[in-house]
């Protein structure tokens, strides 16, 4: 199989997966208890009011018509309208993406910056106290739920010591950059940004720090021992990457909730509480699609680096 065919195949599979996600997400509405009408209407609303709201929400049409219309709008980039919030879903969902991406990037940076030196040190001083400490750290990091770590850090570092903010996102990362030329003071903006993002980034990044530390350590040990093993080890990398991506997205939802971080995760939870289906569907589709996209990119890059994959 040529590289081109491989890319095409992966892309087609990706489209299939996204379509599956869209369909499942659409059907979820009908197997989940609680109607959107009850989220909008007061408890004592008359039947007449309920019916009027149902019409506004588009709930009075047959299922296949709703599904067809939804797919048709979706391929045009229109995720519908949230009557509960009175907003276009597409712009609402995409307005939350930067906050989540920012948190994920910060967590990744924390993970990489901490884990690689740790792993290297741990491998070069194998079976010495430094190595044991690093191994203990990895074990603790992998075993600690990130919401618990988040709550503990808030209690100690934000409430008790007042070093960081307990929750929220006061400025966007990009504002820090624009403040270099803009009206805000660069240092103040940076401080404000760091006060908000540091704890959630650590909470989300700890698991990966531990994961990559272990990976780096074993990689280093192999390299130090038998150089030819490296090629074989490389096969393990995509599995770790997949694990990394999955947990990053799942972890981000929980971490966002603990820190009231206004990203996609918070939007998902809020939409579930409000039974705001258009927004929930939109968010899940964006999350699912980005996941598929990242996978395709990783696969393609991997195929480029190691052409044998193409023929498997």
């Amino acid at each position: 199989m040529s590289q081109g065919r491989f890319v095409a195949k992966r892309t087609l599979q990706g489209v299939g997966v996204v379509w599956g996600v869209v369909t499942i997400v659409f059907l979820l509405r009908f197997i989940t208890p609680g109607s959107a009408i009850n989220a909008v209407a007061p408890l004592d609303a008359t039947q007449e009011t309920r019916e009027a709201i149902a019409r506004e929400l588009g709930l009075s049409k047959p299922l296949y018509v709703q599904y067809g219309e939804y797919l048709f709008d979706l391929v045009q980039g229109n995720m519908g309208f949230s009557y509960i919030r009175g907003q276009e879903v597409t712009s609402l969902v995409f307005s939350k993406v930067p906050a989540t991406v920012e948190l994920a990037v910060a967590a990744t940076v924390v993970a990489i910056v901490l884990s690689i030196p740790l792993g290297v040190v741990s491998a070069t001083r194998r079976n010495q106290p430094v190595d044991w400490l690093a191994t203990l750290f990895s074990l603790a990091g992998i075993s600690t739920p990130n919401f618990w770590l988040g709550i503990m850090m808030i209690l100690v570092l934000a409430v008790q010591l007042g070093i960081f903010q307990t929750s929220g996102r006061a400025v966007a990362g990009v504002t820090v950059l624009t403040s270099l030329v803009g009206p805000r003071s660069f240092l103040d903006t940076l401080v404000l940004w760091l006060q908000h993002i540091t704890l959630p980034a650590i909470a989300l990044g700890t698991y990966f720090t531990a994961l990559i530390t272990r990976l780096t350590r074993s990689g280093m040990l192999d390299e130090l021992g038998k150089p030819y093993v490296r090629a074989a080890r490389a096969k393990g990398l995509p599995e770790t990457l997949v694990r990394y991506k999955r947990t990053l997205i799942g972890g981000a939802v929980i971490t966002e909730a603990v820190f009231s971080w206004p990203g996609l995760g918070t939007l998902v939870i809020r939409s579930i509480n409000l039974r705001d289906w258009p927004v929930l569907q939109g968010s899940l589709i964006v999350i699912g699609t980005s996941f598929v996209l990242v996978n395709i990119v990783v696969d393609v890059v991997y195929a480029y680096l190691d052409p044998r994959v193409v023929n498997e």
Partner: protein
Amino acid sequence: MTDGHEDGVSRRKYLTAAGTAAAAAFAGCAGDTGEAGATESPTEAGGDEDTPTEESMDTETETEAEESTETEASDEFSVTVTMGQMDSGLDPQDHAETNTNIIVSQGYEGLMDRDKQGGIVAALATDWERVEPGVARFTLREGVNFHNGDPLTAEDVAYSIRRIFFNDVGIASPQKNDLGAIDSVEPGDGEVTVNFQGLNPIVFQLFATNGEIVQKSWIQSNGSDFINSNINGTGPFRLTEYDSGNQVSFERNTEYWGEVPEVTDATLNASSESSTRVNRLLAEESEIVTNVPPQEVSRVEGSDVASINPVPSTRIIFLQMRYDVEPFSNQQFRQALNYAVDVPSIVENVLNGFGSVTGQPTLEQFTGYNPDVEPYPHDPAQAEQLVEESGFAGAEITLETPIGRYLKDVEVAQAAASQIDSLSNVSCEVRQREFSSLVQDLTTGNIEDKPNFNLLGWGNGEFDGAQTIIPLLTSQGSLTILKNDEVDSMIEEAQNEPDPDAREDILQETNALLHDLAPWVFMHQQFSVYGVANDVSWQPRPDEFIDIDTASPN
């Protein structure tokens, strides 16, 4: 950004500076993330700074905000409020949610308002009268301007009322029933006349709680997206920044017709985690936080920066029993359950004292409360005897309860059920239900779909007993579990009685009757428990509205 850090706690400032150094030292975190951030800047700028649709308006207000902050920098007083959830959009007439109401009502006002005790006070109307049984006339305040500078007109008021009631005026408002059944609205010279279908005996209670006034031309010339992300009201605060789902910022309206607030900047944000709200309060990031749960109370009381401020709310919690199924169809059985449940002990032990015991559907602060009706005493022996007399000894019943909808709802239900279960001749277990699925069963309009026995809470912002009894306990009520001709006819009489005193008498009698009929196990009046920073003086209101304009520095 209004972070509300106007106090001078030096320890915090030092540590904050130290923390920055620590954070920056986090192995080059700043530099690396900065670079990564640059690649996403195009989307970021579009998504987080200004939503394109709001851009034109926001730029304008932000400039104004900056100017006013400069001139008033000397007496700056910022208040940040953290609630459980954010708004579902800023259209004041297209929601039925407390949190949304708290946010939009910083900027929008109704014809009348309520004071700290729930009493009716004038707002955009200076006077109101019932000119005929089903006709109410409101005299409008002169010299009131919307935030965009345009004067308030009778046409705006009439349009606002119509937009709430009539589905063909813009939206199908979930507040449709909140003002009574309206026939027509007539704007006049400095006054507005509303004609109702029927008497509408509590018209002024309804207008004191509901009916935010919007500007007709502003609503008609803007789309739903814009109306839901901007505010153009007459209220004490003007919107400066709307960050959907994250926070909403206001500055005081220096042109306000009433007393201009001492609060210069107000920010409202939310966290669904109660511990996060308390953390924000203790870290001095928020001045007012809502719904501090009993287990967090001591943490707040033990701190030197904030304290607990409880207020009886307008919400009553009860266990309702369907009149049409055995054993609940039997009055003695229903009374027996009332004797079996030890409500004072539940209030004391489960709710940390944040509740008061009830014995009728109407709360003490409401019109129609009967002061002569005592709550059922805790008397298990009496309960067992009544169960025997009812002929349902050995009954096995299930109490359904929502999870996390009301303060400690599951724990309250479990305590009540175990007290009932400890009777020798009744066994009772608890079934936990997700609230929206329980609501689904309660609101079908068909009594057969409803649970036989379930815990429910009912908020009544109108402070009128009939507003609880009609939907829940009359045979026409949309959520009723009772069909009793005597109750129906008494309520009908009350709703057609123009004399307020005579009406109150009828409602008091109805409450005495309902106590004896015992369609509910009468539980408690829920308290709203706020955490308030010590450097802010603010009293909560029973109707759960947070009137930031009444806060002052301590």
